[in-house]
């Protein structure tokens, strides 16, 4: 029995109502259930068949748990990817040289012109944030919806801000010109790695969205 567009939409709505909030998680679940239902050769009504397939997949109860598992698991994947991207920045000579150069330029400016430290730090902090803001607006315009990939893409994009917030507040004021270039370089590495993770998530989501 081949399911209609309305029946497939019903399954998607059911999963959404039962707690699977992210459409990119539901895609695979919907296809799994529909495939199982269409694979059934007997004569039975849609409701009974749907319940049977939910039971077969162990999704007849506790879908909230699957929802939590899905974002926990996606987080694990993106966290690993973020760490890998940070490692790539250190490992790959082109990135390493780039970040060392950034550090040296920052250090040279702050030692030569201490009064520029605040402005320079503000600019370095603000530049990735500006890119992030643009990306948030772009994702809103593209109507990407509630996507687990985009959520974690943004989370790891902003991870540098979260992580560097504390050290910046507790830096010894007298040695700011020494510490700030180090903290800012680490911040930029984390933000750059986060941006690459976000781009991966965006590419993945857009690929799916275009087909919907």
């Amino acid at each position, binding site marked *: 029995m081949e399911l*209609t567009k309305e029946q497939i939409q019903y399954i998607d709505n059911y999963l959404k109502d039962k707690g699977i909030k992210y459409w990119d998680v539901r895609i695979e679940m919907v*296809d799994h259930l*529909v*495939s199982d239902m269409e*694979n059934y050769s007997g004569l039975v009504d849609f409701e009974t068949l749907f319940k049977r397939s939910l039971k077969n997949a*162990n*999704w007849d109860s506790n879908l909230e748990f699957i929802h939590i598992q899905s974002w926990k*698991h996606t987080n694990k994947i993106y966290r690993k990817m973020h760490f890998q991207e940070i490692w790539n920045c250190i490992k790959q000579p082109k990135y390493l040289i780039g970040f060392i150069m950034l550090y040296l330029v920052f250090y040279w400016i702050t030692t030569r012109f201490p009064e520029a430290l605040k402005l320079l730090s503000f600019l370095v902090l603000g530049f990735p944030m500006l890119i992030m803001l643009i990306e948030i607006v772009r994702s809103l315009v593209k109507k990407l919806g509630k996507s687990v990939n985009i959520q974690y893409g943004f989370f790891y994009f902003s991870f540098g801000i979260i992580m560097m917030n504390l050290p910046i507040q507790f830096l010894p004021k007298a040695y700011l010109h020494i510490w700030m270039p180090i903290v800012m370089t680490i911040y930029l590495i984390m933000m750059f790695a986060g941006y690459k993770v976000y781009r991966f998530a965006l590419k993945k989501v857009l690929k799916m969205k275009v*087909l919907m």
Partner: protein
Amino acid sequence: MRNSKLYKGSLNTIILKLLKEHDKMYGYEITQKVKTITKGELNITEGALYPALHKLEAEGLLDVEVVKVDNRLRKYYKLTETGSKETVNKLNELAEYIKTMQALVNPKLA
């Protein structure tokens, strides 16, 4: 999954092996294929299959292709170049493991 503790460690190898033989497959297809090959002995649960597929994808061993099929989207998984190499390694590892277990459990057959 029957005898889940024994099979759990081999799930990734099972997925990689199937994808090596079938070019590209989707989640439901994998569960059905395993059921058919093992004559219903091994039933991969959805709760184990999808996290494993996503993990292999994140490790760069699998590539995903999303295709529209009859009013819905379907995620097809296929091996990447690294995935193909890793499949050979994993299968060799598994063969070694079976050989070792055979020697321990049934020395006459080993």
